[in-house]
């Protein structure tokens, strides 16, 4: 019953999306203005219905209703409840339903609160949002119905990929989806503004909170995903330039560029066409990412849910939306003037530079991700790895980081380097000192070296925008910028330390043996069997000590065997100190009774993810600041309107 309710809600939501598209489009014509009143309510109800459908899916997963095909294929009655619920979106159909739900809710919120834009632009925006949603409804209902029933009902479900039975991962895809879908709102705004040719500061201000929100979720999603890959895959690496990772990085790069260019548009009314273009590109990257992941067209460590037929469907949607949007852009962009001018040395100039560099990195990542496909079309199968991505992206990241230190200090419109030069003396000296220190340590290759010295300089420079300011009156968005830029320095420092100073060791040891890795002494104390709710494991008890007189601590890496479905995974053990992490993985038992043990000492590696979270926190500050001032403006406007009304009633005004 619940499953059928969900399906019905989904069909109804799809129908309302169609109606929203038609009435929104008609509302733009002279004769159809009567229709325009229903568009906002339609968007709200459509969002609520999608939410209802998603609630139904969560319910059938929570109670493990095995008569629903999706539940039988992906769940198991013995699974812990939180993973049962997470299982609702840990598969293709469920994740697509999550996608339309978030999209519908976002549309509803836009319809409810956005009052700044001219009404025709709003209608076009909501019609665009409905058009995009409609495609995904069609996809769900026609090719991947999550509520399909199964007969006869199986006695037990198939379980869930054990690699995915992990709390971090349960919330990783929804976070990324929130990001992707937030960008769909930016996309709809861009389309709406293009259709009505209303590209200006009001459009940028309306779009900005959505871009910020999406960007925060993407940042958190990427950070969490990277940490997940780090401790769950047991390879000791934190970024593999894997197609799926790139698929989440590309929208982030585009959204970062969009965030900065939207700022220019909002404050200075410049970069109009470019901002629109980025709005289209950011969502395109989300869809291309989803497509690459779902279609299985690229082989990847992450290929959990692949299906070429569905790939074709998403490709069709992609062609319609992105092809359509880019055509519209090409037809209209010539009529959108570029807006106000500015000098090369100015805040705008630095932001344009940042945009170009981010776009270049985006291009490099996209090309590298697609290159195996290109090569395959010409008859070769290749793997493009870090030797391409690292130096190529560094080529553009390094100048960008330098400008990142200077740009926020510049004034809008026109400025001179001489004015800000004095403030940059200390960071420049820090860079020099760090450079000398790293050279004296020795053995650090070029990229980590550049990363280390730039990180040190940037960490200082990122706080410079606060100089000469009253800290209590500094607006929240400025704090946000400072925190996010500092986060970049922190993450960069972590990455560089990881690649410059990691010590790795693979040993075969008997119980009682002691081995050393970096400053650590590691003793294999015992190997014992342990059992969990749906797995059993061999657990190594390691006694580790930092330095000769450190405290002895236990670490418990496991080699786990899941039985539903049967699969082996290795659970790494991590020990975090303020200056780094010790990482241990238990391998197999050798023929001579010795156990394989892989150990890494990674100085300062947690800073990578702490930096990522700081970047996201900066976004949160900026978002709160923006929304607060928007709300204040709305309230003030309401008061003025009230007062006018009151005065009119008292007869003070004719």
């Amino acid at each position: 019953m619940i499953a059928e309710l969900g399906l019905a809600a989904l069909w109804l939501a799809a129908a309302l999306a169609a109606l929203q598209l038609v009435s929104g489009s008609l509302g733009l014509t002279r004769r159809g203005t009567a229709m325009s009143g229903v568009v906002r309510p339609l968007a709200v109800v459509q969002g609520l219905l999608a939410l209802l459908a998603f609630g139904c899916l969560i319910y059938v997963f929570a109670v493990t209703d095995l008569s629903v095909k999706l539940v039988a294929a992906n769940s198991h009655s013995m699974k812990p409840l939180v993973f049962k619920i997470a299982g609702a979106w840990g598969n293709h159909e469920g994740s697509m339903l999550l996608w339309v739900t978030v999209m519908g809710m976002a549309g509803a919120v836009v319809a409810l609160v956005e009052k700044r834009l001219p009404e025709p632009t709003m209608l076009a925006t909501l019609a665009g949002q409905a058009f995009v949603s409609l495609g995904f409804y069609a996809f769900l209902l026609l090719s991947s119905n999550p509520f399909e029933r199964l007969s006869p009902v199986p006695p037990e479900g198939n379980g869930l990929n054990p690699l995915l039975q992990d709390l971090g991962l349960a919330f990783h895809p929804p976070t990324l989806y929130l990001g992707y879908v937030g960008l769909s709102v930016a996309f709809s705004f861009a389309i709406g503004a293009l259709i009505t040719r209303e590209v200006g500061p009001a459009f940028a201000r309306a779009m900005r909170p959505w871009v910020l929100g999406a960007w925060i979720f993407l940042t958190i999603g990427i950070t969490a995903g990277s940490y997940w890959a780090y401790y769950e895959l047991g390879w000791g690496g934190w970024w593999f330039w894997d197609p799926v990772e790139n698929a989440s990085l590309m929208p982030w790069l585009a959204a970062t560029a969009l965030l900065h260019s939207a700022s220019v548009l909002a404050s200075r009314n410049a970069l109009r066409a470019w901002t629109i273009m980025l709005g289209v590109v950011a969502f395109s990257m989300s869809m291309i990412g989803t497509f690459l992941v779902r279609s299985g067209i690229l082989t990847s460590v992450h290929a959990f849910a692949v299906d070429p037929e569905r790939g074709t469907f998403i490709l069709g949607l992609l062609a319609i939306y992105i092809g359509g949007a880019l055509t519209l852009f090409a037809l209209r962009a010539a009529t959108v003037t570029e807006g106000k001018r500015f000098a090369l040395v100015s805040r705008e100039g630095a932001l344009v530079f940042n945009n170009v560099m981010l776009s270049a990195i985006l291009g490099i990542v996209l090309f590298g991700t697609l290159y195996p496909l290109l090569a395959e079309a010409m008859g070769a199968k290749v793997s493009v790895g870090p030797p391409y991505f690292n130096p190529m992206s560094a080529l553009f990241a390094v100048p960008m980081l330098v400008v990142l230190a200077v740009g926020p200090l510049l004034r809008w419109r026109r400025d001179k380097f001489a004015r800000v030069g004095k403030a940059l003396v200390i960071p420049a000296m820090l860079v020099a000192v760090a450079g000398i220190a790293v050279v004296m340590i020795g053995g650090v290759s070029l990229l980590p070296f550049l990363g280390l010295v730039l990180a040190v300089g940037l960490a200082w420079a990122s706080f410079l925008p606060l100089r000469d300011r009253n800290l209590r009156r500094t607006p929240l968005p400025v704090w946000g910028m400072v925190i996010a830029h500092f986060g970049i320095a922190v993450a960069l420092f972590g990455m560089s330390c990881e690649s410059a100073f990691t010590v790795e060791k693979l040993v075969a040891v008997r119980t009682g043996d002691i081995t050393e890795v970096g400053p650590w002494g590691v003793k294999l104390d015992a190997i014992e069997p342990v059992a969990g709710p749906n797995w059993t494991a061999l657990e190594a008890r390691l006694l580790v000590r930092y330095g000769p007189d450190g405290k002895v601590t236990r670490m418990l890496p496991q080699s786990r065997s899941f039985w539903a479905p049967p699969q082996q995974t290795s659970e790494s053990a991590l020990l975090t100190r303020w200056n780094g992490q010790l990482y241990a993985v238990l391998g197999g038992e050798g023929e001579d009774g010795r156990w394989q043990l892989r150990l890494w000492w990674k100085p300062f590696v947690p800073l990578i993810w702490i930096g990522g979270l700081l970047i996201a926190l900066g976004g949160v500050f900026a978002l709160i600041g923006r929304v607060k001032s928007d709300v204040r403006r709305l309230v003030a406007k309401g008061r003025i309107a009230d007062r006018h009304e009151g005065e009119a009633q008292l007869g003070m005004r004719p």
Partner: protein
Amino acid sequence: MSDLPANKPRRWVIWLPLALFLGFVVLVMIGLFRPADRNVASALVGKPMPEFSLPPALPGRPGLDSKLLANGKPHLVNIFASWCVPCRVEAPQLAALAKAGVPIEGISVRDTTENLQAFLQQNGDPYQRIGADDDGQVQLALGSSGVPETYVIDGKGTIVYQHIGEIRPEHLGLLLDKLKEAGR
């Protein structure tokens, strides 16, 4: 310096994103609808191995010289790198081949000694010799477009077969057949 956003963007620039996107769609369509058989014969098959001499990739181990390959016995030449994920996938298959007595020569592409050592420690070392191809020149000369790739060389130093991509368990029979052919 003049003011930054100069004129309106030129006509054709505006259409560029669309053109690039259409290129992407065509590329992906080719990828999606390709027949499942992805074996493509290389231009170098049937021709002698190009001449090269690579320095040792690991201290204390021999490097790789193309003259050594023409010693009357068939060889496998495996192009690999520690940074390549498919290379990890094919490691057990290479180990099985080495165990079966097949001489395997390695060419490690754009790698460092430490990474290479770690890679071999983790994934096993099936190689007799490993040459370091630090700038990828030999890889290019062999007509190899990426890693991993594996060549079957006969006793006279002629390339008999080129295997593109990782060696999966189902490829082992094919490779052993090719080696047997090469030994005749």
